[in-house]
């Protein structure tokens, strides 16, 4: 039976991160409900990417707690995050540059496969099976993101926008429950952003995904999000529906500027 209150998939409480004298995150708390898209906005250097890095366990945090599905993340090593069901893309692209698009995507499935050194070395039947399954799923994701034409190209040779899509494909390949997207619309023109918006919605509903979306493209954030959280100087300054946040005077002053 469903609980009366929808369960939060992600619960961030009082997270604080410091780098020397800089406080990149300052007691940030929020929740993201299962099956929703939450937008995360804020001026440059507000701490959005830092928060993602905490969720990936790339950064430690001095105070606070992050619960994913009710369990603290700190019990999991960085390489265990994907298996928990948190997938991500990177703001500044972090692709495997010499590998083909297809291999990049296949690697995204690493956490959803298990064969090890020995069984790979002997290419046991279950390894072959696993490879086939991964391969088929990679093909689906590649189709979904319209990357068929460049599947065999090394990613370093692709234009920026395409590389961003490869990142998304790679993240989807890990079948995440929570997808962290760091500026997925960077380098896309208007029409392409619109496409992305539809895509995100579709992925979200069909895969029952929850998303946390960092984006400076207001049009996208406001239209796609169920909830928007705004940070400034590492502090949360607003949290609510897109309409609420858009009107929030602090957000307007710090982030949107006069004519948002």
């Amino acid at each position, binding site marked *: 039976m469903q609980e009366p209150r929808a369960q939060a998939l992600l619960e961030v409480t009082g997270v604080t991160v410091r780098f020397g004298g800089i406080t990149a995150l300052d007691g940030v708390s929020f929740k993201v409900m299962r099956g929703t898209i939450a937008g995360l906005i804020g001026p440059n250097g507000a701490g959005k*990417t830092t928060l993602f890095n905490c969720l990936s366990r*790339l950064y430690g945090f001095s105070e606070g707690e992050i619960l994913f599905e009710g369990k603290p993340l700190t019990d999991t090593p960085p390489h265990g995050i994907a298996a928990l069901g948190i997938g991500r893309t990177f*703001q*500044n692209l972090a692709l495997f540059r010499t590998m083909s698009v297809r291999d990049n995507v296949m690697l995204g499935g690493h956490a959803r496969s298990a064969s090890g050194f020995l069984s790979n070395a002997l290419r046991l039947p279950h390894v072959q099976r696993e490879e086939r399954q991964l391969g088929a799923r990679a093909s689906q994701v590649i189709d979904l993101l319209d990357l068929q034409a460049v599947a065999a190209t090394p990613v370093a040779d692709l234009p920026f926008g395409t590389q961003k899509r490869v990142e998304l494909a790679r993240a989807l390949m890990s079948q995440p429950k929570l997808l962290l997207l760091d500026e997925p619309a960077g380098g896309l023109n208007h029409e392409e952003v619109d496409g992305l918006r539809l895509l995100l919605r579709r992925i979200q509903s069909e895969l029952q995904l929850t998303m946390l979306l960092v984006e400076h493209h207001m049009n996208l954030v406001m239209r796609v999000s169920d909830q928007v959280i705004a940070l400034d100087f590492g502090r949360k300054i607003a949290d609510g529906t897109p309409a609420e946040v858009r009107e929030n005077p602090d957000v307007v002053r710090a982030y949107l500027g006069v004519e948002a």
Partner: protein
Amino acid sequence: MDLLIHQVLSGLATGGIYASVALALVMIYQATHLVNFAQGEIAMFATYLAWTLMQAGVPYWGAFFITVAAAFVGGVILERVVIRPVENGPILSLVIVFIGLLVIFNSVAGWIYSYTIKPFPSPFPTQPLFGNTYVTSHELGSAGVTLTVLLLVFLFFRFTPLGLAMRAAAQNPVSSRLVGVRVGWMLALGWGLASAIGAVAGIMVAPIVFLEPNMMGGILLYAFAGALLGGIDSPGGAVLGGFVVGVLENVVGVYLGTELKLTVALVIIVGVLVVRPAGLFGKVHVARV
């Protein structure tokens, strides 16, 4: 106790050798982000040049400066002619070229000058300073020379636009071109300066270890270790690292025997690096996403 003091001082003296070569390694690292394994052999070859000049009657300082200048030019030419064709290749291809240069210099020096050791003069007085038997005046003098070179290198990187441009070129050639830095010439300049520093090192080392084609072979490893221990991007750290390696090696030799002193010294150095992966004074460069 007396032995320990002696050993520490003697370690500082050999450490001075490592420090001077380590400095040349740092120089080339700043300019190329690579460690040139042929650095020691280049220094050795330059020292033979100085020796030849002195044999021909050129006075010490004349030979010194001619050699340093020639090493600079030689370094520049080496970069432009030998290194340039592989400049943009994979790093390991460059390493292979370095190994190639190493064996060429070593072998050609042996061929031209033969392998018998040659005494090499020191510019410093032969009488021990203050009548002590701890360190010779040459050892003191060459440490002084190393520190002077260190100061110059430090000032160069810290305060001149050229120094900045050189570091920029090593770090990000594409962006460097976009701000107008002539990347190719920066590399050549780096090679030139590193060779010149190497020549100074060789000339200071030769009176201690005697001049012969393999004189830098063992030193290079210690210098490499010293440079990394101090932090490969820190000239001061590298010099200090060189001294530390010298002392460490001696102290290990006294207390744990000479047979494994190299091994133990290296284990300690690597151990320190495991704890401090950027060396004692190296800047930790954070990679973030």
